[in-house]
């Protein structure tokens, strides 16, 4: 078999190699297939039989048996091919801007399909009903449910449900009915398609797969509400269309069309609701169970991902057993589980879960798209101009109708209505995808004698929407200049928003109004009181403000380190150089404690950043790298400090490297006054006479140099305490985090010896307060000065 070689960079050669590869392998495959066919037809058990069928006179040195590995081999080859194509796709920078990844996958599929068709090979049975519904679909749905940003989703829940639910229904029935009417026209030769079949077709063709739209939105950073609408629709749409599909199939199975009475229709509606809600209910239960179990897995963290996946899958299967909607179940399970699981599992498990989920869903999607491409090139098509054209037209028309009608109504209730532009975008993002194709492909032939027609029509719609709409939606969004999101990560913003939430809730209480902020508040309280105690391992508090703050510090520290590592020169030189540049601060001590804190808190922050890119995860390699760099850095710091103790504090008091909150450089009296005052008011926090922000580092110091030093360097020995007083500091992750913690401490202690004598007051207050200064001061010496908190704009 042709071995896979590493592809040289460059998209052109990439493509060429891919093509050659595909051709070579399938040629070889088909050749050996021919030969293998003659020897053995069935299963691997025939292998032995095959080899012994002909009287073997000689032991053959080389044997070839392709049929044994055919199915897995080809499936693997497909997946690999798609991955290579993706690599090539992303290597060529401009391409992802031009077209969505689903286009690429389809093209690869077409390629493979043409190869298979050309060599007259039988493609592996990737797609049949049970394989699709049991193996291919769950990972896709799980992934989209897991990575959903929960807060915006729940804030917009009403609108989303209204839009996704009713939209799917309107589309399905609208398209179905209109096509039925078209079929009545004798001239088109579609008379034998009766109403139910059309309705079924309508339901499967209305399943939207707006991954392309989402990718574009994320790149264009459109406003949150719009994003959430599309996202929510994507999430619920699959579930709803499958439910509808199943119900209609059940109807179709009732042989006599005329037997369907209003009772049945009512039963159908009721079933729809039961299936939907039942699925969600199941999902929530399983979510809670798995969250509960992850509470106890701290000693065997290797099985944590397993638990997450198995429970999600189990929720799907359990729901399917009862004919409830497995898709909605697995979605609900993922959403419920995520919050608690993230806090319980270790960092590595969390990463594993994330990546594994992405991987599984990517594999499924790839297989489906390739299969779609494969089946495009084939003999099982039936082309009927009327049907197909009308399908296309009706899809667009009904989507437009549903968008504008539903949003018109929903806008009355929204305090922040969707503009016409937004609605146009939503209409245009109705790209069909793998879901529709699968459902079409899995139509039972017995009930649908004209299945091929449906498949062809579906394929046409998919190709049209994916290629044409997928490619043009980017420019459209930019052209329409949709309102952008204003998500900045800043502490101020976080604080203000928090304040606003509480303020609103308070105001509503005063007015006696009841709104969803209340609901959210109540849920949060319930959550804190009961759920978290049961489901979370150690009930650590999560405050998004604190976590964001820590995250920002961490980020800045990482940036600092990454820039700092580039100039490992003497510190004074560094300091000179950096004096004129942007000044940033190091807070290594903070960073270590942050690391521990972040293993708990980072999850909270993750969900605030709205970045759902179906095909990629945000690279987080910088963290590990930064840790390494930080450790190395601190070693070098320590060494250089040992050599020349004074070196870092060398420069003159006049060194002007103060930032925003200035140390009053010449004003020692004011400063001493401040120290006195602020010491006392640590707990009162009422300083009428101190409008300026001063950090009292050291009390009662005389000389300028001393004061300068003191300002910079502070009771270091408070630092280890400082880390310990932080509430989140606990050694749950004894891995890398610990190592990082250990090393810097000697660093500070070394300095500590020097300055211990100067320390006169060692109250908790001053140490705590001055701990803050340390970070600033300390770094300034090292010229690193990277503000942990400031975002230089």
């Amino acid at each position, binding site marked *: 078999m042709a071995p896979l070689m590493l592809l040289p960079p460059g998209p052109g050669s990439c493509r060429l190699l891919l093509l050659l590869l595909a051709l070579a392998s399938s040629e070889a495959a088909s050749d050996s297939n021919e030969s293998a066919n003659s020897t053995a037809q069935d299963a691997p058990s025939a292998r032995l039989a095959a080899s012994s069928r002909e009287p073997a006179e000689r032991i053959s040195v080389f044997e070839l048996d392709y049929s044994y590995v055919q199915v897995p081999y080809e499936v693997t080859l497909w997946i690999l091919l798609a991955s290579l194509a993706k690599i090539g796709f992303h290597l060529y920078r401009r391409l992802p801007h031009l077209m969505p990844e689903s286009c690429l996958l389809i093209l690869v599929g077409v390629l493979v399909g043409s190869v298979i068709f050309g060599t007259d090979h039988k493609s592996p049975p990737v797609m049949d009903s049970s394989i699709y519904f049991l193996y291919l679909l769950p990972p896709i749905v799980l992934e989209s449910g897991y990575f959903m940003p929960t807060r915006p989703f729940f804030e917009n*829940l*009403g*609108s989303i449900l209204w839009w996704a639910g009713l939209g799917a229904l309107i589309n399905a029935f609208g398209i179905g009915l209109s096509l039925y009417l078209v079929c009545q026209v004798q001239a088109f030769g579609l008379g034998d398609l009766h109403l139910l079949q059309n309705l079924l077709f309508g339901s499967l063709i209305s399943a939207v797969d707006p991954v392309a739209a989402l990718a574009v939105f994320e790149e264009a950073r459109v406003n949150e509400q719009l994003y959430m609408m599309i996202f929510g629709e994507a999430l619920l749409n699959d579930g709803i269309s499958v439910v509808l599909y199943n119900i209609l199939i059940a109807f179709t199975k009732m042989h006599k069309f005329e037997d369907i009475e209003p009772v049945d229709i009512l039963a159908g509606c009721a079933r729809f609701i039961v299936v939907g809600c039942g699925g969600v209910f199941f999902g929530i239960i399983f979510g809670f169970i798995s969250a509960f179990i992850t509470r106890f897995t701290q000693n065997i963290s290797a099985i944590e991902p397993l638990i997450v996946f198995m429970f999600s899958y189990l929720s799907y299967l359990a729901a399917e057993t009862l004919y409830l909607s497995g898709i909605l179940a697995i979605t609900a399970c993922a959403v419920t589980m995520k919050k608690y699981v993230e806090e319980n599992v270790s960092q590595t498990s969390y990463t594993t879960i994330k990546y594994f989920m992405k991987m599984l869903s990517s594999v499924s999607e790839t297989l489906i798209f390739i299969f779609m491409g494969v089946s495009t090139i084939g003999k099982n098509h039936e082309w009927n101009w009327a049907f197909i054209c009308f399908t296309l037209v009706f899809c667009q028309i009904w989507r437009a109708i549903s968008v504008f009608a539903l949003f018109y109504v929903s806008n009355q*209730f929204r*305090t922040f209505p969707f503009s016409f532009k937004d609605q146009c975008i939503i209409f245009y993002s109705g790209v069909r995808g793998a879901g529709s194709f699968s459902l079409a492909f899995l139509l039972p032939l017995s009930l649908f004698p004209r299945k091929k027609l449906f498949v062809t029509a579906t394929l046409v719609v998919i190709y049209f929407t994916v290629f044409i709409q997928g490619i043009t939606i980017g420019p459209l969004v930019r052209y329409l200049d949709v309102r952008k999101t204003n998500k900045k990560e800043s502490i101020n*913003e976080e604080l203000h928003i928090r304040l606003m939430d509480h303020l609103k809730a308070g105001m509503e209480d005063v007015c006696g109004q009841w709104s969803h902020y*209340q609901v959210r508040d109540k849920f949060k309280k319930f959550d804190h009181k009961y759920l978290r105690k049961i489901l979370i391992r150690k009930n650590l508090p999560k405050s998004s403000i604190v976590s964001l703050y820590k995250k920002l510090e961490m980020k800045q520290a990482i940036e600092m380190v990454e820039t700092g590592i580039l100039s490992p020169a003497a510190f004074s030189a560094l300091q000179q150089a950096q004096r004129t540049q942007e000044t940033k601060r190091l807070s290594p001590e903070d960073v270590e404690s942050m690391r521990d804190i972040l293993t708990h808190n980072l999850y909270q922050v993750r969900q605030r950043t709205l970045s759902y890119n179906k095909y990629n995860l945000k690279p987080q390699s910088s963290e590990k790298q930064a840790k390494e760099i930080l450790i190395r850095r601190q070693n070098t710091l320590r060494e250089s400090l040992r050599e020349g103790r004074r070196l870092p504090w060398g420069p003159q008091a006049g060194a002007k490297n103060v930032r925003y909150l200035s140390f009053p450089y010449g004003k020692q009296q004011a400063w001493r006054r401040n120290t006195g005052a602020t010491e006392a008011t640590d707990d009162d926090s009422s*300083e009428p006479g101190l409008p300026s922000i001063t950090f009292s580092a050291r009390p009662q110091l005389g000389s300028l140099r001393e004061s300068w030093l003191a300002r910079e360097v502070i009771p270091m020995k408070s630092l280890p305490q400082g880390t310990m007083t932080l*509430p989140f500091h606990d050694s749950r992750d004894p891995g890398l985090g610990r190592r990082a913690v250990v090393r810097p401490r000697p660093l500070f202690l070394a300095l500590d010896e020097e300055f211990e004598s100067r320390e006169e007051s060692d109250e908790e207050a001053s140490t705590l307060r001055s701990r803050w200064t340390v970070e600033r001061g300390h770094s300034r010496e090292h010229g690193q000065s990277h503000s942990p*908190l400031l975002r230089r704009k």
Partner: protein
Amino acid sequence: MGAAHSASAEVRELEGKTGFSSDQIEQLHRRFKQLSGDQPTIRKENFSNVPDLELNPIRSKIVRAFFDNRNLRKGPSGLADEINFEDFLTIMSYFRPIDTTLGEEQVEQSRKEKLRFLFHMYDSDSDGRITLEEYRNVVEELLSGNPHIEKESARSIADGAMMEAASVCVGQMEPDQVYEGITFEDFLKIWQGIDIETKMHVRFLNMETIALCH
């Protein structure tokens, strides 16, 4: 209320001053009566009748905001002892949704009003600046719901936020420049990117309805 005729004249006057519709005014009046215990004015103590407010971490600030002379437009500082219905409405009017159909200027004006209200919440001593202590106070209150977060963490967060604000507002500072505090202009700058329209409003609907969507 008194005789129907004078009542509606009052209502119209209030409508004009505060921008609420007469239905909303009626409803809020009912609520006012409930809170005040049928008295013509509300005092701070009356707010303890609102049970859910007790659970709010910033309740003291909220209650204070009602009596703040700056919000009531009665003076540059200080607290009123009691407020009447008109004052109540004035405060509530800060939370009306911004009517985007009015001109650009009006929208900007409304926006400023809301932000000023917020500013007054932070700036408790009415000196026109949010100092570090005041900011710390706010953060501590916000985090007071969480029993595990220590004061010290809250402080550092406030400090960090202050520094961030300084960098936004003043940019690169001279070495011996002291950043006094966030003034209202700086505050506006910070809020530049965040749209307050979607956030700072309360839906004054009928009390029976539960608003599920935005």
